[in-house]
C-alpha cells in the first residue's frame, strides 16, 4: 500500500486506537531495555578530561534538547496536516505533543543550567542558544494555552497550526545559533560536517540514551493522542446528548 494511503487509513481514529494498543507495549519494553542499557553505559563511561564527572549531565541534557526540537518538528508536520490535508488526527497529534515537548524543553533548560553553573560559572546567560531554547519553551506553553482558550476544536486547530508554523522558524535558529553568534554554548559535536568530535566511549552511551528518550517520547505521544481522541469523543457525545435533550 502506498505511504499516503496508509496515512489516510489512519485517519480513522478507531483504527488508530487499535494500532496504539499494539504499538505501546512493544515501545514500552523497548524503552525500558534501552534505558537500562544506556544507564549501564553511562555509569561505565569515563569522566571528561576537562569537565570531569559533570559530563554525565550531557547524557540527559543533549537527548532532551534534541527531543525538544524533534517534538516541535512533529508538531510542524502535524500543523501542515491540519492546514493542507485536513487530516482528522493531525491536530490530535500536535495537541498531544505540546506538553511532552514542553517537558523535554524544561529538562533541557534545567539540566543545562545545572551543568552551566560549575562549568561556566553561571546558571544562565542571555546568549543566542539559551535564549532561543527559552523561546521554544514559551512557544510550547503559549500553544497549550491557545488550545485551552478556544473552545471550538476546529478553530483552535487552525489557530494553533498557524502559530506552530510561525514558531518553526525558531528551529533552525536554535540549531545554528552556536555558529551564527558568539555564545558560551559549545558548537555541535555530534551532527556536524566531518563527523562527531566526541570520543566513542562517550558517543555510544549518548546515542543509546538519545534513542531511549526518543522511544519514550513516541510512547508518551501515542498515549497522549489516545487520550485526546477519547476527550473529543466525550465532547461529541456530550453535544449529541444535549441535541437529543432539546
Amino acid at each position, binding site marked *: 500500500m502506498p505511504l499516503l494511503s496508509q496515512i489516510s487509513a489512519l485517519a480513522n481514529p478507531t483504527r488508530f486506537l487499535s494500532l496504539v494498543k499494539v504499538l505501546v507495549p512493544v515501545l514500552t519494553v523497548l524503552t525500558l531495555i534501552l534505558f537500562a542499557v544506556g544507564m549501564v553505559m553511562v555509569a561505565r563511561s569515563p569522566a571528561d578530561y576537562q569537565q570531569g564527572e559533570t559530563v*554525565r549531565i550531557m547524557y540527559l541534557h543533549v537527548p532532551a534538547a534534541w527531543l525538544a526540537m524533534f517534538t516541535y518538528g512533529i508538531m510542524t508536520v502535524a500543523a501542515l496536516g491540519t492546514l493542507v490535508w485536513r487530516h482528522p488526527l493531525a491536530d490530535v497529534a500536535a495537541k498531544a505533543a505540546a506538553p511532552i515537548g514542553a517537558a523535554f524543553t524544561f*529538562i533541557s533548560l534545567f539540566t543545562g543550567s*545545572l*551543568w552551566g553553573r560549575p562549568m561556566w560559572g553561571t546558571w544562565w546567560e542571555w546568549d543566542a542558544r539559551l535564549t532561543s531554547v527559552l523561546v521554544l519553551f514559551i512557544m510550547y506553553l503559549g500553544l497549550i494555552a491557545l488550545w485551552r482558550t478556544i473552545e471550538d476544536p476546529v478553530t483552535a486547530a487552525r489557530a494553533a497550526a498557524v502559530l506552530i508554523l510561525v514558531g518553526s522558524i525558531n528551529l533552525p535558529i536554535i540549531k545554528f545559533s552556536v555558529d551564527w553568534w558568539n555564545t558560551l554554548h559549545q558548537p555541535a559535536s555530534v551532527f556536524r560536517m566531518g563527523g562527531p568530535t566526541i570520543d566513542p566511549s562517550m558517543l555510544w552511551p549518548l546515542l543509546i540514551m538519545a534513542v531511549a528518550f526518543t522511544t519514550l517520547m513516541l510512547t*508518551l505521544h501515542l498515549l*497522549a493522542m489516545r487520550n485526546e481522541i477519547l476527550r473529543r469523543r466525550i465532547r*461529541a457525545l456530550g453535544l449529541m446528548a444535549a441535541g437529543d435533550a432539546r
Partner: protein
Amino acid sequence: MIDTLGPYAGFILASYAATAGVVLALIVWIIVDHARLSRQLSSLEQRGIRRRSARSAATLTERTDTP
C-alpha cells in the same frame, strides 16, 4: 557513589532526579487523564449515549440475535 562523582555530585544528581521527576510526572498525568476519560466515556455509554457507528453496530447485533 557521591564521592566518585567528585565535587559537583550535587549538580549531577539533581539533573538525574529532576529528569526522572519530570518524566514520572508526565507518565502519571497521562495515566490519570486516561482513567478519568475512560470513566466519563463509559458513564455516557451507560446512559445510552453512543456514537452513531457504535449504535448501528449494537442495532445490528440485536437484529442478528432476534430469532
